[in-house]
């Protein structure tokens, strides 16, 4: 079964540094998402992406964050100047599209996450 893959599995970065988290969604999926999960807390939506544009973003997704689909397979999350509170698990997800009328009800497939540790 196709999977969403994320690299690296663990990233350790000094505060203030830029970090790029990488994701390879399932190949025929068109919708892409980033979530984060601070240790012991709930999963929080960050951003959704479709047709090379951000569809929706949460209040967490401020100017320090950006997403990009640099080629046909990768989907990246960049944090420009990391803060201690950015330490979390970051999950990428993707979903397919099945007709315009029911778009949005497809389950999202999640990667195993990147653990980001800010020192």
């Amino acid at each position, binding site marked *: 079964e196709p999977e969403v893959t994320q690299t690296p599995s663990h990233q350790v970065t000094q505060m203030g540094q830029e970090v790029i988290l990488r994701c390879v969604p399932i190949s025929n999926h068109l919708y892409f998402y980033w979530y984060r999960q601070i240790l012991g*807390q*709930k999963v929080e*939506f960050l951003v*959704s992406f479709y047709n090379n544009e951000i569809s*929706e973003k949460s209040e967490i997704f401020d100017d320090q964050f950006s997403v990009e689909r640099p080629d046909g397979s990768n989907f990246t999350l960049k944090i420009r100047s990391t803060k201690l509170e950015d330490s979390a698990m970051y*999950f990428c997800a993707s979903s397919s599209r099945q007709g315009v009328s029911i778009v949005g009800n497809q*389950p999202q497939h*999640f990667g195993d996450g990147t653990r980001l540790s800010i020192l």
Partner: protein
Amino acid sequence: AQSVAQPEDQVNVAEGNPLTVKCTYSVSGNPYLFWYVQYPNRGLQFLLKYITGDNLVKGSYGFEAEFNKSQTSFHLKKPSALVSDSALYFCAVRPVNKFYFGSGTKLNVKP
């Protein structure tokens, strides 16, 4: 404000007994409802979803969930728990184009 509540941080059940993991939601419109499971050091795995139709939805690994519109609930159930069901379970609702997740319920199934 949109919200999803999982009132129990932890549910303990003996193997072979039925289990219920509770979820209630408060969102506008008619959202899509989902359950995901998370095993240690892994991403979330889809279990089941409710879009429309029959209020009882069957999903993966023998799980099912019952949608109750009047109570705005979507409780996850399984008739007979397995030790391997022990994991973290998340309820999620999708009113538009993003997911709102509950805080998660840790399910412990003891032999």
